[in-house]
């Protein structure tokens, strides 16, 4: 039993330090979020020097438009990775949901709003499928979602017979292409901020959030504390599916077309953002704030580099380097702590 006691104490210490309850200045300075903030400011400075178009309100707000879809999924991915899981199927699932919108509206003649609801429902069901197999049968998430990655993408092709759909109603296109009033704030940014709030509160201030941390840092300990592992595990994948459905709606509306290969490889962008944000791939550690900062680090990097005339390749390489560096720095810091 002492093992469990120790694990509980360790978990509590970790949670306390994350909630900043022991925050002295040095701890604050070494905290993950602070380091990310420094990186972000540095990036802003460098990018502003590289291109004079970068540091304008219009550009800064408009560049968020392209990453909201990934951002929404990164929020739920943070929960998944904190439980020591991973969801590789998010890109394919987003593609499937997007295709469902196209097929329901273009082929089955449903209203576009019903089609959106169907897509979100499909997202939830798919998440439930992932979660159930992972939680009930205790199969490693990486394998289950690897299989469903292939399956969902295949279904996206199958249900559409590889057709594309476009010409959606104007009202629907407003979701992804409009601004709030006359301000340059994209509509979907508001949606994103809303969900950031929801996830932040859920992870930090509810028992559900606490259970996710305990589950990720020590599964046995969580089991013996009477936490219903299966429910929690299933739920995080259901959330993941839900966010895929939502982001599919926004993505289809933004690009005003849907193809079966939409959002291919999105899972890697999302996981990269979450890991740069400081979530531990082995579970038990991570914060929504970190994920949001991680997203901004990536977005500013890609947007700034492309404004400065670097190719998409340089951006890909830069993201890979930042990913490895950030995890490396964090491991070193932890060792010195």
């Amino acid at each position, binding site marked *: 039993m002492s093992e469990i006691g120790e694990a509980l104490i360790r978990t509590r210490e970790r949670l306390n330090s994350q909630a900043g309850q022991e925050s002295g200045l040095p701890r604050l300075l070494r905290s993950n979020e602070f380091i990310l903030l420094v990186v972000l400011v540095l990036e802003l400075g460098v990018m502003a020097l590289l291109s004079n178009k970068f540091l304008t309100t219009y550009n800064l707000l408009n560049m968020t438009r392209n990453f909201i879809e990934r951002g929404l999924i990164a929020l739920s991915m943070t929960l998944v990775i904190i439980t020591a899981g991973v969801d590789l199927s998010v890109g394919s699932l987003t593609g499937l949901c997007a295709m469902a919108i196209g097929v329901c509206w273009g082929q089955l003649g449903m209203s576009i709003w019903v089609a959106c609801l169907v897509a979100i429902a499909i997202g939830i069901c798919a998440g439930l499928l992932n979660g159930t197999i992972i939680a009930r049968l*205790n199969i*490693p998430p990486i394998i*289950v979602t*690897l299989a469903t*990655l292939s399956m969902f993408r295949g279904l996206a092709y199958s249900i559409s*017979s590889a057709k594309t759909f476009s010409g959606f109603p104007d009202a629907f296109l407003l979701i992804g292409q409009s601004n709030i009033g006359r301000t340059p704030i994209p509509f979907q940014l508001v949606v994103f901020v809303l969900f950031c709030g929801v996830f932040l509160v859920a992870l930090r201030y509810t028992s559900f959030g606490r259970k996710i941390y305990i589950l990720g840092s020590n599964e046995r300990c969580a089991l013996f504390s009477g936490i219903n592992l299966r429910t929690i595990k299933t739920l995080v994948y259901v959330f993941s599916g839900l966010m895929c459905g939502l982001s599919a709606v926004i993505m289809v509306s933004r690009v005003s077309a849907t193809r079966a290969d939409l959002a291919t490889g999105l899972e890697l962008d999302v996981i990269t953002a979450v890991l740069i944000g400081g979530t531990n791939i082995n579970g038990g550690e991570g914060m929504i704030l970190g994920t949001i900062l991680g997203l901004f680090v990536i977005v500013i990097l890609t947007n700034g580099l492309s404004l400065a005339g670097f*190719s998409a*390749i340089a951006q890909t390489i830069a993201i*890979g380097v930042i990913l490895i560096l950030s995890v490396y720095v964090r491991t070193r810091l932890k060792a010195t702590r």
Partner: protein
Amino acid sequence: MATALSLPKRILVRVVLFRQLGLLLATLGLSVVMALLVPVFFTWGNIRDILLNICIIGLVSVGMTMVILVAEIDLSVGSLLAVGATIAALYIAAGGSTLVSIVIGVAVGALMGFINGMFIYVTRTPSIIITLGTMSILRGLNIQIMHGDWIVGLPKRFWLLGNLRVLGVPLPVWITIVVAVVFIFILRNTNFGRDIYAIGGNLNAAKLSGIKVNKVKVIVFTLSGALVGLASVLFAARFGWVVSNSGQGFEFSVIGAVVVGGTSIFGGVGGIGSSLLGALLMGILPNSLVLLKVPPTWEKTILGLLILYAVISDRLIKNRTERGLAE
């Protein structure tokens, strides 16, 4: 002595046998059904096609099996395949010899595998993160080298490397068989092979018994990289062209083949033979679908279902054994 196996051991032995047997039966069953439904399936030409198609996956899955056996993972193989194919193709296009292109491919692969391994060792970062990073770095590098162009029109002598028939069997198939036999021997009969299983089976026990865990892991990544390099040259030779997104998503097919073969993602359990069997099943399936005139859009769905079926049945069998051992 031999007859005095305890009950749990006997059950374990039976399960291990059953695991391979189930896969073999599934493969054979599918083949027989296909042969009855579509006579073309069982012609030598079609079988040769299937074998040629799974060579690339097969070669890479040999390395991936070792990587997964030491409880690591390598997501960068698809990007590495593209880089190796590009470099080999550019060298050939510049008038280089076929033999040297193989050496170059293997060297590039081994170097990248070594770098992956050293990154993981030095930074003590999980391999899934490092290889996720090198995956995008290598993909970017490949597009950079190619400037987004296609490499086409490779000479016939190079094309022969991927398509020449020796005794009726394409050269890549022979190469895959030789490589597989060599590595099966290494895994089974050398200290190095034993170390691989020991590390995946119980890391602490392996450390305590004096195995140089990090050294073995770096070697495994290097060998795996070298095999990807070899596969990349065959890939370029077989098709005669390389595009900048060649091999995208390839890592998933390879990991799929290894997992369908029954190698445990937690390490320590599995083998190269079963991975090749997994690759074979994953090669027969798309071929059958085409012959049955199933729309090609269904291929990915069915492959996904196959992987799910494999892991779920594996888990159910394991549950049954655990219950058996408890009683």
